[in-house]
């Protein structure tokens, strides 16, 4: 099938609900309405109101109840309507979801997924556009995946649902519908914790994830003289150091691109990992192209916030000039 990311997410949910009747989908407006982005469209009709439920306006309860369901043998897939409304649930992720297995020495486990659309660029209202993967990626015990393509969205979401541990699944809403690709009809998984080399190259490694992948690819396409290797990190936690390191050892140069604010963002960790184990291969400082250290502006100026291809191009060129 030819699918957008949102369709791929929807298909993954259908497939896993079919595959495992312990899978339960809930969140605000996911049932009759099919989700504000239609990610859960059709699930209610197919699987019924026991397994597809609207939740009250209660992010704490959504995350907390997911832990409870998961410890009881279910596979909850909860939706937080926008990533800007995940902060109320932060405590449930830190205090319950991420460590119930650890606390109980494996007696109770939380195989749950919290899906949330993240990022700017869709002209949403205040607080709707945040990218806080840097903060969530710092919670031991919580996996954090961010697909960038329809193929990965489906395969990684299926992996996340089957994962024995809690997974925060941040979906790049800016490209929810703006790109399509062939996606296998059948069920398949893409592994969590494994980056993908989107393009091989020898001059410079460009690492990105989520919606910034597409700006990155566009930037690289525009740079005719640079043979860039593009890595889609795909999972923030656990972070696939090896794929990044291997590439940087080959290219000697690296640019990291993310939409979140720069300071304290996950780009720092990528750089630190390279510093740890590939410093001597570096021919230039690693460049970061990121959002600025400000909240995402309201819609009229939000585009200025986003790392657009020219910013990425410039950073790659600058890196190449060393």
């Amino acid at each position: 099938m030819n699918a957008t990311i949102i369709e791929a997410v929807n298909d993954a949910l259908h497939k896993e609900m079919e595959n495992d009747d312990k899978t339960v989908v809930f969140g605000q407006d996911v049932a009759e309405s099919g989700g504000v982005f239609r990610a859960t469209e059709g699930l209610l009709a197919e699987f019924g109101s026991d397994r597809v439920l609207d939740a009250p306006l209660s992010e704490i309860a959504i995350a907390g109840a997911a832990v409870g369901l998961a410890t009881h043998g279910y596979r909850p897939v909860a939706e937080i309507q926008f990533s800007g409304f995940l902060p109320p649930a932060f405590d449930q992720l830190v205090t319950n979801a991420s460590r119930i297995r650890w606390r109980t020495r494996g007696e109770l486990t939380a195989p749950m997924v919290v899906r949330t659309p993240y990022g700017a660029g869709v002209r949403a209202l205040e607080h709707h556009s945040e990218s806080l993967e840097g903060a969530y990626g710092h919670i031991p015990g919580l996996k954090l995946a961010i697909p960038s393509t329809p193929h990965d969205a489906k395969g990684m979401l299926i992996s996340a649902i089957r994962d024995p541990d809690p997974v925060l699944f941040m979906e790049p809403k800016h490209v929810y519908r703006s790109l399509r690709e062939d996606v296998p009809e059948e069920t398949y998984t893409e592994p969590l914790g494994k980056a993908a080399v989107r393009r091989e190259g020898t001059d410079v490694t460009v690492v990105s994830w989520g919606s910034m992948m597409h700006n990155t690819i566009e930037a690289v396409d525009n740079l005719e003289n640079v043979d860039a290797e593009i890595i889609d990190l795909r999972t923030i936690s656990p972070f696939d150091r090896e794929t990044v390191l291997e590439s940087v050892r080959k290219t000697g140069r690296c640019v990291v691109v993310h939409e979140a604010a720069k300071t304290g963002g996950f780009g720092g960790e990528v750089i630190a990992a390279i510093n740890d184990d590939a410093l001597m291969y570096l021919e230039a400082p690693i460049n970061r192209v990121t959002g600025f250290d400000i909240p995402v502006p309201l819609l009229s100026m939000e585009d200025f916030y986003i790392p657009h291809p020219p910013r990425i191009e410039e950073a790659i060129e600058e890196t190449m000039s060393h």
Partner: protein
Amino acid sequence: MDNSPQSISFTPGDVGVDPISQGDVDIETYSVVDPDGSFDSERVPDLSDDEFRDLYRWMLVQRVYDDRATKLQRRGQLGTIASGRGQEASIVGSGSALSLDDWIFPYGREAAALLMHGLPLRDLLMYWRGIEDASRMRNANIVPMSISVGAHVPFATGKAWGMQLGDEDTVTFTNLGDGATSTGAFHEGMNLAGVLGVPAVFFCLNNQYAISLSFDEQTNAETVAQKALAYGIDSIRVDGNDVLAVYNAVSTARERALEGNPVLVEAVTYRRGAHTTSDDPTRYRSDEEVEKWKDRDPLERYRSFLEETGRWDAVDEAAIREEFGTEFEEAVEAADEFEERDVEEIFEYLYKEMPPELERQLAGLEDFLEERPDVYDHIERRPKG
């Protein structure tokens, strides 16, 4: 000693345990004018004829505003907006009961209340165009809209606490939806308000929906009003489509709040339109339901009150529409002319003094915009939404 399971198996039997349940609490919905137009004359507030007519005017303003803003949105001149259609009596009845020194914590649908509190219409439009400058809430004691549902409740409690400490003669007035009552922030903010006895009125516009979720799925509580009992604070349940009832309820609540008794007011109303311009309500509710509530249209109901009391003739509906229409157009023009903008704007005001790294980021962006004007191909500056 045996540590093995010791639970006693219960043999039911009537041991006289009689749980408290919501059915035990009697909650009336206060009203003045019935849907059929009849009214309780003892409850009619003591207002001048002009004031009575003003309530109608403002409700009409809200309605016209919603219509026009929706049209602007469709023409791409505003971002996503949330309309107050159906909630006019709640919005106007409450807004009129406030003093201009009170602080409103808005939640998004209460245009008329903000306008009557002093906010320029231009700014309201600019906010929905996504222009930060509008959140200055120029000229009015208004905190920016709480787009994050419920997050403003503890904030409002804190500000009311400040009023209490300063012995001020004002309240914070927080608008919130039925959905907001399910948030932890609501709970903690309300409870603290009760503990401190701050001058705060929490005004819940129970419009029966939180996007697609109907109120009876939002909570098993039959009313929002009863939620106040959890905090030991008083509440008033009022017919939210009855502007005089809302006015009386909020006025009373405000007086009590000033005496150190925060109050929760539940205005029972209905969201007649879509949740926002990005929502399609036919997915989750029936036409019949929507029709049913049309009967209780706040403007029509109040109009019959004005007619009955001989005050309607002096209302020139067409003139109000036209006058506000002109005002709206002027506001759009003024918004269109909003000053030339600069990227500095999105860096400013985060801190009183910009830290060096942020300065660096700003300078970098400014240089970059000059060097690489092609970046504008990716940037839609949307002064018009």
